[in-house]
């Protein structure tokens, strides 16, 4: 039976020792409560919830899935009860404003708890995850009245939320969306249309669901500039804030999917449902973008979650599984065979998982630290954090989900044939992970966003903001003999990143297709450099601790060894990406469409 243990030591290493959250919180407005002892008390309780309540129902969720009958969705056994416990524990309120019933703690602290929830049971975690997205939207763009009516109930967890964007004919290209919003005499709008792929659109875990819906006003301009945002509750809410009759919104069916079976993916039908405009008319997409970064970091987290889960379970299995002997001679002669830990190739897979999981953890919590600053920092700090976020978001989203999937796949491989058998849980981990590269913008879309919008459209300014930080860091630590190998390699890659960008930019001036042709390799290259930066930062801390003398020599030595593995075995992948992306668009575009297949000729 697969298991999850919250990696509290590693979360502490990343947030306290590497990213120095205590100083960050001391300087962050409104974070006075987040002292190290408070943070650790909250994490320990969150860990208990993830380990003891959510982890045991992860497999149940996969096996049973959600059931749909007559518009009603029943979640798997235990999901509802776990949600009740989550609400009673006050967890939905963590990072939301105190005047709305929240605890007002920093987003980044919420992310640490979310990491544990996400890893122990991703499908379950999506229900509160979607609520969080709806809450952020109402918090930023809602009127005071809307906040008091809807936000308070979402913060308490009594109600949950959704984000309704996708329609049958438009996913990535939201400019094509058709759902109509007609103004009514009472100031509300009648919403009509069909939305698909709505996660947590209908379920039995809470009494009411607050949908945030993208729709078009009658006089709206075509395309993305004519989209507005509406609040549409499942049950209407009366003037006293209490639930009233059922609104004209219903779930038409749920999807049968490859993974995340425990989460209801719904077709939602709006038949003249009562909705309320949120934010400015025709500015809906802009409102969405403000929260899109956080939502994408939330999906990036899914990559980390599946990598961590795979790592924990495959290390346990590899230590336990006796098979064959080490090539250099038996390591455990008293046993019938050595554990598969002795085999270099098994270690290659385990170390790959470790490098991506722990490196990904550093990137995720760095990003959530930036989120804190974009909300509470001074104007100058906000501007810098915004710019860094805009660069790192597509990288984190696509790179961490791609490497998370690779790690999940290695997890299955370590188990050999047993990995293919459902009860070990490794195939579920692979299936659940797969969606992360698709929703919230596919890898391809993230890559275009990164190279096109974020890097080239800013003439490389956004990129330079980050590469400068990396360069400065390398210079600072080059003097240390033991750290020098990391710093030299990182600095070189960092400037190559700039050079490659320039080359692609030049090519793109002659042919715009070069951007699309280079984009995914460019994104992966960027991801490897970014993670190299975080592994170097972790190596600096580990080396310092070892130099000072520590009782945890094993922990810090493993950090240095993983950093070395990352630099020597994973970073060479940048060579392939660099060569591929500079090979030009021609090798992709030359072939005639009709010549892709000759099946019936």
């Amino acid at each position: 039976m697969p298991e999850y243990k919250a990696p509290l030591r590693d979360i502490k290493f990343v947030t306290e020792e590497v990213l120095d959250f205590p100083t960050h919180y001391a300087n962050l407005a409104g974070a006075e409560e987040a002292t190290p002892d408070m943070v650790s008390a909250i994490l320990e309780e969150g860990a208990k919830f993830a380990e003891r309540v959510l982890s045991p129902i992860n497999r149940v969720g996969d096996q049973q899935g959600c059931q749909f009958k007559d518009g009603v969705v029943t979640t798997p056994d235990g999901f509802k009860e776990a949600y009740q416990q989550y609400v009673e524990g006050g967890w939905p309120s963590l990072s939301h404003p105190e005047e709305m019933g929240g605890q007002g703690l920093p987003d980044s602290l919420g992310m640490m708890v979310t990491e544990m929830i996400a890893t122990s049971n991703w499908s379950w975690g999506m229900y509160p995850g979607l609520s969080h997205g709806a809450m952020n939207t109402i918090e930023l763009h809602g009127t005071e009245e809307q906040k008091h009516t809807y936000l308070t109930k979402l913060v308490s967890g009594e109600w949950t939320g959704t984000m309704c964007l996708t329609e049958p004919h438009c996913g990535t290209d939201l400019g094509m969306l058709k759902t109509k919003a007609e103004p009514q005499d009472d100031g509300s709008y009648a919403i009509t249309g069909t939305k698909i792929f709505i996660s947590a659109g209908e379920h039995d875990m809470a009494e009411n669901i607050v949908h945030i819906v993208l729709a078009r006003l009658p006089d709206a301009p075509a395309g993305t500039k004519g989209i507005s945002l509406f609040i549409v509750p499942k049950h209407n809410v009366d003037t006293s804030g209490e639930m009233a009759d059922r609104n004209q919104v219903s779930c038409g069916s749920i999807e049968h999917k490859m993974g995340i079976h425990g989460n209801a993916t719904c077709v939602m039908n709006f038949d003249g449902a009562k909705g309320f405009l949120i934010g400015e008319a025709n500015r809906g997409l802009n409102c969405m973008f403000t929260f899109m970064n956080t939502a994408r970091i939330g999906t990036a987290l899914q990559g980390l979650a599946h990598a961590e889960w795979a790592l924990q379970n495959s290390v346990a299995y590899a230590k336990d599984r006796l098979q064959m002997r080490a090539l250099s001679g038996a390591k455990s002669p008293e046993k019938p065979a050595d554990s598969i830990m002795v085999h270099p190739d098994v270690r290659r897979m385990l170390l790959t998982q470790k490098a991506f999981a722990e490196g990904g953890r550093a990137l995720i919590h760095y990003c959530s630290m930036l989120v804190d600053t974009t909300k509470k920092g001074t104007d100058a700090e906000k501007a810098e954090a915004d710019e860094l976020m805009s660069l790192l978001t597509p990288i984190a989203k696509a790179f961490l989900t791609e490497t998370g999937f690779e790690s999940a796949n290695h997890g299955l491989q370590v188990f050999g044939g047993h990995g293919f058998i459902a009860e070990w849980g490794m195939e579920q981990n692979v299936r659940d992970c797969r969606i992360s590269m698709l929703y919230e913008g596919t890898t391809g879309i993230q890559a275009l966003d990164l190279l096109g919008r974020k890097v080239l459209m800013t003439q490389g300014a956004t990129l330079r903001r980050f590469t400068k930080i990396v360069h400065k860091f390398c210079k600072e630590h080059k003097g240390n003999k033991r750290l020098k190998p990391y710093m030299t390699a990182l600095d070189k890659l960092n400037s190559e990143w700039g050079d490659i960008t320039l080359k692609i930019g030049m090519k793109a001036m002659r042919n715009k297709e070069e951007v699309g042709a280079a984009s995914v390799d460019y994104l992966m290259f960027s991801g490897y450099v970014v993670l190299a930066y975080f592994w170097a930062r972790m190596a600096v801390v580990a080396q310092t601790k070892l130099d000072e003398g520590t009782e945890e020599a094993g922990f810090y030595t493993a950090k240095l060894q993983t950093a070395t593995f990352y630099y020597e075995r994973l970073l060479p992948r940048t060579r392939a990406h660099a060569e591929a992306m500079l090979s030009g668009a021609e090798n992709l575009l030359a072939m005639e469409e009709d010549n892709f297949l000759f099946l019936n000729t």
Partner: protein
Amino acid sequence: MKILVSVKRVIDYNVKVRVKPDNTAVDLTNVKMSMNPFCEIAVEEAVRLKEKGLASEVVVVSVGAKSCQETLRTALALGADRAIQVDAEDGLDSLSVAKLLAKVAQNEAADLIILGKQSIDSDNNQTGQMVAALLDYPQATFASEVVIESGEAQVTREIDGGLQTLLVTLPAVVTTDLRLNEPRFASLPNIMKAKRKPLDVTTPAELGVDVGSNVTVLSVAAPAERSGGVKVASVAELVDKLKNEAKVVS
């Protein structure tokens, strides 16, 4: 009714315990520490009695170095009202701890003292009994149910071969068994409130208790590792081995 609950910070029940190479003690460096599970049950019982309106105040006390304040905060997050740390070195023997707890109970004029039946590190199962003896209070150990009514506690105890029900007059000492209740998880708002609840620090000297130890630890060793089994050819061989090798049958 005022309830005093004692809590102990011990090695977490999930941790694989290692003995120090010099066999002087269990290795506690960088090991996860938590509230003793039986103490968690004691806190839960006290909080439930308060929630039922039967108790007016729940005070938690721990004897140990500063780090046990974390454990006290956990108890406050679970619903205790205030905390007392008796600042002393970790690992005092049961009698010293019992003397300190008895003194605190007297100072607090506690009507009910609830303790875990034993701590999972030293497994002595004697502190509660000693506290009762020192205070000359009635005691009901290994409780699986506690009912408070008109100045008395009706306690169901788990004993060999079944259940025994005792009626004790308050003030009394109750120690908890595993099945008394299932401790709750602390809620986020309560974790935050716990920080603002009072936590007083006192010392054995202030309490007028001499904590000189009567127990010396000679050596700590891990249990022998289990070795592989053998198949025996006959019952006679089995009996012979039980008699002469394992020496469990005479």
